[in-house]
């Protein structure tokens, strides 16, 4: 198990080598994820998916990247040029940088130097990931703002509002993990899960995190910033060529990053899953990277599965879910967990039955409180103005569909007898 003091001792050539390694791992994982997503979603929709470029179509995403490089770059005349250039760079760089603290495995020997399989670690490394992810939001907002176009602006606003809302739930779901691990460093959190994964011990935190991570990465069913039917492409509508590719890359790197964070904080990081972990020596050497990869791929598959299964939420439902469900539930869960821990420390471990009873009473009380709050708000009905009388389909200037309860007034057509024509009796309908 690497200690915090094991970090920061690498010679410079090893730092460069590890940096290159992390970079290559990320790029390869992104290319693989894009290919896997297209293939898996294709299978779910009874199609085949890309299978022509390389074995099983594996080179498809690489060739797509080359193709984008050969495409014309269009910068709209309305764009704020400097910011328009900066935004994709900001997105891509922060996405890469957030990966610096992910642990891939225990200590190994690289060319005779004993070093942990992790680029770096420090006592606040999870906070660092959150901070860098927040800077990444600037890339999206600035992209939407600087395009000087309606849809990107709306997409950028939506992205920022969505990401900051779900970042709160994400941040709150970490608190219980820090409480049990007693540390905010990724390597120490992995070490503290040797006996039991936090996904089991702190199941509500895990569920909240998994929900929030889908919202945080703008993925289906929470992909409202890129809602094609509403906003064309969202914040990157005006981007083309490799600038667009940078946003695409950043989105998929963020997917890999949040999956790795989920693995590290809740699924025991690089440690082997339970029955395998009984084999001595399985958690040493280079082999644990395989467990890390398998667990991360599990979350990436979850992303793809969600995209293939669920329809997109409406924006108000989505924001209400984040602010009215996820945040109160996370706060209550933090109070419950920390309260139980505080009581246990004060009373000692002998009072287990009292503790269980107390927990049940507390949970029921909190649940009732939450229900009461929800019911009171649900009573408020929206002010629907009841339409009176029939409505012209050409209400005002634009043709509009009828609201619930409205009926269109009868519009005379040439086939029907016109009021003036029937009284005279001289005109018959042409084909009657």
């Amino acid at each position, binding site marked *: 198990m690497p200690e915090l003091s094991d970090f*920061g001792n*690498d010679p*410079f050539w090893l*730092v*460069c080598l590890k*940096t290159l390694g992390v*970079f290559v791992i990320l790029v390869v994982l992104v290319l693989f994820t894009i290919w896997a997503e297209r293939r898996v979603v294709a299978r779910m929709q009874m199609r085949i998916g890309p299978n022509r470029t390389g074995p099983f179509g594996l080179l498809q995403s690489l060739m797509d990247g080359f193709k984008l*490089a*050969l*495409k*014309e770059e*269009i910068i*709209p*005349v*309305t764009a*704020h040029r400097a910011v328009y250039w900066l935004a*994709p*760079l900001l997105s891509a760089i922060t*996405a*890469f*940088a957030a990966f*610096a603290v992910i642990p891939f495995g225990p200590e190994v020997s690289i060319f005779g130097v004993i070093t942990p399989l992790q680029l*770096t*670690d420090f006592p606040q490394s999870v*906070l660092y990931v959150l901070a860098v992810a927040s800077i990444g939001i600037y890339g999206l907002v600035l992209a*939407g703002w600087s395009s*000087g*176009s*309606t*849809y990107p*602006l709306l997409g950028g606003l939506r992205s920022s*509002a969505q990401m*900051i809302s779900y970042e*709160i739930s994400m*941040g*709150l779901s*970490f*608190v*219980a993990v820090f*409480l049990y691990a*007693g*540390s*905010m460093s990724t390597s120490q959190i992995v070490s503290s899960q040797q006996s039991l994964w936090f996904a089991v011990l702190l199941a509500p935190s895990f569920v909240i995190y998994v929900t929030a991570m889908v919202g945080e990465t703008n993925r289906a069913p929470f992909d409202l910033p890129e809602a094609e039917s509403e906003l*064309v492409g969202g914040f990157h509508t*005006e981007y083309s060529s*490799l600038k667009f590719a*940078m946003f695409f890359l950043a989105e998929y790197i963020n997917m890999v990053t949040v999956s790795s964070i989920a693995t590290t904080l809740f699924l025991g990081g690089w440690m082997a899953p339970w029955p395998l972990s009984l084999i001595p020596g399985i958690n040493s050497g280079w082999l644990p990277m395989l467990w890390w990869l398998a667990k991360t791929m599990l979350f990436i598959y979850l992303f793809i599965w969600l995209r293939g299964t669920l329809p997109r939420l409406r924006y*108000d439902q989505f924001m*209400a879910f984040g602010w*009215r469900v996820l945040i109160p539930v996370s706060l209550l869960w*933090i*109070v419950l967990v*920390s*309260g139980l*821990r*505080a009581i246990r*420390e*004060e009373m000692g471990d002998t009072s287990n039955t009292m503790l269980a009873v107390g927990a049940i009473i507390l949970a029921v009380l909190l649940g009732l409180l939450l229900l009461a*709050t929800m019911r*009171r708000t649900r009573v408020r009905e929206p002010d629907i103005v009841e339409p009176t009388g029939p409505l012209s389909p050409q209400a005002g200037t634009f043709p509009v569909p009828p609201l619930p309860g409205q009926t269109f007034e009868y519009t005379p057509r040439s086939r029907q007898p016109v009021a003036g024509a029937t009284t005279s009796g001289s005109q018959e309908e042409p084909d009657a």
Partner: protein
Amino acid sequence: MNVYIPILTLAGLAALFACFSVTMATFTGPKRYNRAKYDAYECGIEPTPQPVGGGKFPVKYYLTAMMFIIFDIEIVFLYPWAVYFDSLGLFGFLAMLLFLVNLTIPYVYEWRRGGLDWD
């Protein structure tokens, strides 16, 4: 070596890669001028005139941003508290409970006043 140096090397490598790609694309791609192509995209209709910076946007986003700041500060206070929870004991728990209750009051107020409604 300092523990923060590897972050700089990784960010530097990413910056090199991103800057190189974006700059290279301006040379590799074709350039065929067409005035309509450089207009803001709006599904084919005449684009709505936009001031640089986009002009007005719904005030709901502003409210969301303010709520985010409040809760983010709360999170920043919760993190060190969670790490040192065991040494703080029951006192630490009650103190943080008081803080959370204080923050819940404006949250409930905003909820009841409709600040969390997206119409």
